[in-house]
């Protein structure tokens, strides 16, 4: 069979009424997919904003108030790191994993686990430890999204920073969160925490 007639045969098949129906289904499916995917991603991005995070008073009255005093909230040049910049990974698969894990936090909010300041401070050590572990496990990925070690200019850093960064950090022995705990929020009781 020649190549020409083979194409003709396929074209004949595609023109038949039954396959036309298939086309419609495919087109609808494609359009539906685009709408669903776009909607899903838009909704996902809405949950990735500072406004969304502090729409619960647990966040607004506790961690957000503390964060407002720190350099990641306000500084000389106005470059900011908001909640999701540190607490949600940027890469899509990691982000989805984190978002699914965060469904536990929705449960905590519904059951009022930390709905008063007292309850919050009571749980603070456990909450902080979970976040320290997450950052330790991913080698402080969220810090490094902005603070890239490759481009750190040691000549611009203070003596103390140079010593620590060129030693423990450069060798990979330590990661950002090992030393930089409590930079955006207050700390829990640090008894027994390594290096404290």
């Amino acid at each position, binding site marked *: 069979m020649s190549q020409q007639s083979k194409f003709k045969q396929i074209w004949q098949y595609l023109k038949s009424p039954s396959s036309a129906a298939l086309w419609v289904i495919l087109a609808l499916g494609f359009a539906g997919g685009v709408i669903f995917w776009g909607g899903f991603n838009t909704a996902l991005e809405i949950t990735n904003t500072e406004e969304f995070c502090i729409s619960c008073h647990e966040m607004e009255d506790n961690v957000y108030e503390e964060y407002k*005093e720190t*350099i990641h909230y306000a500084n000389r040049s106005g470059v900011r790191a908001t909640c999701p910049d540190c607490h949600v990974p940027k890469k899509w698969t990691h982000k989805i994993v984190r978002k699914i894990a965060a469904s536990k936090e929705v449960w905590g909010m519904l059951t009022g686990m930390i709905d008063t300041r007292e309850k919050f401070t009571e749980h603070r050590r456990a909450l902080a430890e979970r976040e320290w572990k997450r950052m330790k496990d991913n080698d402080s990925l969220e810090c490094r999204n902005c603070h890239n070690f490759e481009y750190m200019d040691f000549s611009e850093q203070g003596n*103390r920073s140079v*010593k620590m960064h060129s030693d423990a950090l450069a060798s990979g022995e330590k990661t950002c969160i090992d030393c930089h705990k*409590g930079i955006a929020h207050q700390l829990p*009781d*640090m008894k027994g925490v390594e*290096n404290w």
Partner: protein
Amino acid sequence: MKLLIIIVTILGLSFAVLSQEKVTVNTGSLDTIRGAASLDETRKADPFKRVIKDKNPIARNYVHQPPVIPHQTRGYRIDLNSNKCLTCHGWKYAAETGATKVSLTHFETRDGKVLSDVSPRRYFCSQCHVTQADVRPLVENTFKPVESLTNN
């Protein structure tokens, strides 16, 4: 006639009241070495001074002077939960970080008992140790440290 007297009295009284209101109030305005300050308005605060970012230890001026802090301490919390200073100046970490070790006198209670860690009365570092900024002194000072302390 009666009406005229009443009108004149009212006018006179209102003038008296008005002229009394013109009496100036003493606002205690004084020219101080920090600038003029008066009671009826809040003086504009001076801009923040830039704290020394990071330097080697600064020599003491007199015996028993708490050494001053030659680096920034912004955001370093000292409270019941944590003490950021001690994560470098504590004996456990001083060798690793190259920081000055906290003096052993800080382990003593006011009764002279030596504890195994920093005593609560010496725990709040910034009560005595302060950061420094390079500024012009408000009052001229000719104080000179004793010879024995000049090279710390």
